[in-house]
């Protein structure tokens, strides 16, 4: 039974967009916390710790996100654990984000000149103190554009969660298309909604960057 798309369909799409936002937020904060830890391990003075962090990053960056999602959703089911699409997607996307954010932030930390480390070491600061007072504040401004760039990618990548039955923007689009058979119209609306999420993020990033630049 095929029907015409109506205003209610658009409302449902917008409502589904909330789950896109929620999954993005979960992945960004979960992945961000994990990412900070992985990044710290990645730059730690002890070499074996660095190797472990590097292994983690390589394993995640070197495999498709879709495969990671399937591992958490179907993989655990094989061992008799039923995981909901929410849990599987939340965990998989957080882990995915942790590897990329760790690498982005490591790059920003390393962009702070070596002399800043030396000068602060020569004053007697410990490694955590050097990070906290000297290096991280300088890395922060450098980190904003690539971090927001990744966040925008993350928003779009959450559409992959539709494959494990997680109902977000793309999945809702599929469902609506199934009912109306108007893929061009429906996916057009879906695309516009993604844009409405991503565009303000980029704008915010530019504003923040300018503000921090003025406040040096």
């Amino acid at each position: 039974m095929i029907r015409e798309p109506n205003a209610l369909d658009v409302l449902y799409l917008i409502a589904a967009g909330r789950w896109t936002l929620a999954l993005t937020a979960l992945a960004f904060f979960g992945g961000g916390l994990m990412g900070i830890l992985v990044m710290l391990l990645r730059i730690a003075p002890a070499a074996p710790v660095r190797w472990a962090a590097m292994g983690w990053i390589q394993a995640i960056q070197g495999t498709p996100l879709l495969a990671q999602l399937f591992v958490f959703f179907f993989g655990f089911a094989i061992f008799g654990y039923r995981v909901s699409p929410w849990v599987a997607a939340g965990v998989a996307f957080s882990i995915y984000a942790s590897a990329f954010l760790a690498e982005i932030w490591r790059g920003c930390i390393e962009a702070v000149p070596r002399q800043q480390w030396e000068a602060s070491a020569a004053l007697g600061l410990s490694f955590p103190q050097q990070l906290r007072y000297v290096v991280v504040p300088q890395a922060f401004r450098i980190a904003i554009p690539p971090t927001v760039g990744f966040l925008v990618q993350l928003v779009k990548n959450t559409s992959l969660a539709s494959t494990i039955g997680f109902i977000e923007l793309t999945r809702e689009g599929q469902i609506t298309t199934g009912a109306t058979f108007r893929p061009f119209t429906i996916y057009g609306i879906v695309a516009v909604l993604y844009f409405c999420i991503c565009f303000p993020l980029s704008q915010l990033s530019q504003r923040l960057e300018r503000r921090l630049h003025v406040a040096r």
Partner: protein
Amino acid sequence: MSLVRLEGVTKRFGQLTVLDQVSLAIEPGDIVAVIGRSGSGKSTMLRCINALEPIQGGRILFEDTVVNDPATDLRKLRQQVGIVFQSFNLFPHLSVARNITLAPTVVKGIPAAEARRLAEEVLARVGLAEKIDAYPDQLSGGQQQRVAIARSLAMQPKLMLFDEITSALDPELIGEVLKVLESLARQGMTMMLVTHEMGFARNVANRVVFMHQGKVWEHGPARETLGRPRTPELESFLGSVLH
């Protein structure tokens, strides 16, 4: 007891031997000028003294602490040995005041108000009291370098190391920094400075160390060593910098 002793110190970067069996003692109150050609190991020697570089042979003593002993608390050592670099290395995101108070507050635990007074005091010593709330990028090179000196002084070190601290400055700014060094010297600060300013070495330093190919090639009282070089290497070095 000497303040610093280097005993047969050897430092390598891979295959390259940069310090070759260097032995040297610095007494409290000494002002030691270190001179020598580019690549002779002057900076490296300074950096080894506060353990910014590890050494491969010999030992370095600061008072009775063995600097190169892995068990030594480097943070404690570095509170007593200040270093100022050619490139200033101020923290660009912090005000002059915070550049100076950072280490006293977070390393030594001095309360903020007291640290602020300390900052005022050391800034006055380098003649920059009015710049306390400026940011590094609002200062000239000479002013930045004086702030860097003040930042080190605020830790009340027993020894100050200066690595070519006027080399990155425009000629008209060199004088103001040298004046600060002279006043520190008059106040009895023990210092070791790598410099290309031969006039300064002759007039302010009491001892001169000439480095050549990673070795202490010649050393002795400043005027005598610079006035009557005993080795052809020092003679030709002095000839090349004076003309």
